[in-house]
């Protein structure tokens, strides 16, 4: 694939919603006029200073932005000590989006989209959720604006993310457990699409990651790019220079693209970490770019886990938020063109990093950023002393404590770190 000129990365997608060969709008004709209308409405909102001002105001006073950029001194020292030569390790910084209202980056996008839905006169909101973080964030903004909210959630995820299910109900949302497929995120997304195609008059589909038919990948990215804009300014202020690398976990790709996007035209390495589940060779993972190939699902062309016949495979990750067989199309393009790198971390590596971060920094991360934490040591050593690495701490781990407790009970004989 042809890479664009170095200074035009952020000009994509094109008018058809394409990032190179990826993206587009692969939806049923019934939805196509709605998707086009959404695109028009979003372009108008984006250009309207009043919309931006309203969004900024809510981000400041309701979400709690800007989130801090924090120097993780003890984690840095720990990895410096682990270095082959010892001490040759970059400084590790956390972009603390886990401090946002509702505990993850998801609300940045929900706030933007709910204001857009109101502007469009929509009166009913639907969403899919995996970990429940996007569901909680959607239910939250719906409560705030008094709009009815229906959340589709795989039955498996309803089981493993109980605290978030309870939270969503408290916030007044209706939860629909989805039993088709394996009952995880992709099945929830199918069911949300079925709702949307049935309720075309009044319903707004608030997609939670940077995927789906255009304009969703670009729109969600734009709303999440506040992460990268802040981090860039904070690094310049705190360290007097840009970071050498940015690091984020990859589910559908929204927290990662939000961090990466404002750095696309800088000399900064961008590294996404996919979930390798039980291992890439086990067939039970969620690493669509590392272990999949291009195809079409959920409205966009992108990397997918699929069999020879083009049937989509079920993903696996201990982290419900990463348990998706696809990836936003912009990442697919950044991978092929070499502008970003993608690596993986297994369930066990994420579990170990989860505990390490809790003990060393007093921050209990979500299992999603724990995948990025699992690779941050090796990347900080690659960058080396005097360098800076920014990791997107995109969620806090309260929702995961039962999952982690269960996993640790099942691995009682695992290395010392994993014993509580």
């Amino acid at each position, binding site marked *: 694939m042809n890479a664009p000129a170095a200074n035009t990365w952020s000009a994509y997608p094109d008018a058809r919603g394409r990032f190179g060969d990826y993206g587009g709008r692969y939806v049923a004709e019934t939805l196509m006029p709605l998707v086009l209308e959404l695109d028009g409405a979003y372009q108008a909102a984006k250009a309207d200073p009043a919309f931006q001002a309203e969004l900024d105001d809510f981000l400041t006073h309701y979400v709690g932005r800007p989130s801090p950029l924090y120097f993780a001194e003890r984690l840095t020292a720990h990895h410096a000590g682990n270095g082959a030569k010892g001490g040759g390790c970059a400084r590790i910084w956390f972009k603390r989006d886990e401090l946002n209202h509702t505990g993850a980056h998801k609300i940045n996008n929900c706030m933007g989209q709910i204001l857009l839905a109101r502007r469009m006169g929509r009166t009913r909101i639907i969403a899919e959720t995996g970990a429940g973080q996007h569901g909680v964030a959607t239910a939250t903004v719906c409560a705030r604006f008094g709009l009815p909210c229906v959340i589709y959630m795989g039955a498996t995820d309803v089981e493993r993310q109980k605290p978030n299910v309870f939270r969503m109900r408290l916030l007044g949302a209706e939860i629909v457990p989805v039993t088709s497929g394996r009952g995880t995120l992709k099945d929830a997304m199918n069911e949300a699409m079925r709702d949307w195609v049935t309720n075309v008059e009044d319903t707004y589909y608030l997609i939670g990651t940077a995927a789906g038919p255009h304009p969703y990948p670009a729109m969600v990215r734009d709303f999440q790019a506040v992460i990268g804009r802040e981090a860039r300014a904070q690094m310049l202020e705190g360290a007097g220079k840009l970071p050498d690398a940015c690091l984020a976990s990859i589910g559908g790709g929204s927290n990662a693209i939000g961090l990466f996007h404002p750095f696309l035209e800088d000399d900064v390495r961008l590294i996404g970490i996919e979930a390798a589940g039980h291992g890439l060779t086990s067939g039970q993972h969620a690493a669509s770019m590392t272990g999949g190939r291009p195809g079409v699902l959920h409205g966009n062309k992108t990397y997918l886990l699929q069999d020879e016949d*083009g049937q989509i495979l079920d993903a696996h990750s201990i982290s419900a938020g990463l348990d998706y067989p696809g990836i936003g199309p912009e990442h697919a393009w950044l991978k092929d063109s070499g502008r970003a790198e993608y690596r993986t971390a297994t369930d066990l590596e994420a579990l170990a990093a989860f505990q390490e971060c809790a003990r060393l920094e007093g921050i209990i991360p979500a299992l999603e950023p724990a995948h990025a934490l699992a690779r941050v040591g090796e990347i900080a050593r690659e960058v080396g002393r005097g360098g800076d690495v920014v990791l997107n701490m995109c969620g806090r781990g309260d929702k995961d404590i039962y999952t982690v407790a269960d996993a640790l009970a099942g691995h009682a004989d695992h290395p010392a770190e994993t014993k509580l």
Partner: protein
Amino acid sequence: MSVARLDARFALCRAENRAAFVAYLMAGDPDAERSLALLCGLSVAGADVIELGFPFSDPMAEGPPIQRASLRALEAGTTLTSTLELVRRFRAGETGTPLILMGYLNPVLSYGYDRFAADAAEAGVDGLLVVDCPPEEADDLADALDPQGLALVRLAAPTTDAARLPAVVRRASGFVYYVSVAGVTGVKSAAAETVAPAVERIRAAAGGLPVAVGFGIRTPQQAAAVAQAADAVVVGSALVDTLADQGVEAALAQTSALAQAVRNARR
């Protein structure tokens, strides 16, 4: 053959001043042998056109009946390759009835557009209908199907307004499929009086191509009502449910009843 087989069949129905009856079934549901038995009995039972679904793991536009059919077919090991094999076996005994494949884009993309077009034409397929491939994304696929004489059947929906309609029917061939309700298959049905004006509008925009109407049509009464205005009436979920609950013979009996109702609708 191919588009020509569709054109010939619609010309025949028009000469008889009646709508065509289009029967949908899922390839490999519940297994290859029973689905072949059903396929081979359909034209005798009165189906004018056959729409053969090929399964997909994530059938986003289907309601529960076709979702379940898709699952049964996948569990029986059905693939796009085995679907083409089914068509080949069907064509060994039946050459007059047009057959189009219907499904989602990813299996076709994974097969490769050019290879698919060649193999489908060779197997005796006459056209393809892809639910999640709107006209904006369809040119590459149409470019592959055209040289083989295969129709890429276009879909119009209640949400398709007058401004958009010309783009939807651009490069249309065979017929245009009007999804008569906003929704998934097999759940809601359209009010009969909304169908006629939509069919008129689409037929005019598509330069007189036949317009088939589907989604939510289950009974002979409903089929007959739609057949007043439409050039073809499509029934899917109802047949798929009967096949699952009562078997091949019952599904063929239901096909006869539906086809009869469509034939007699304008008498």
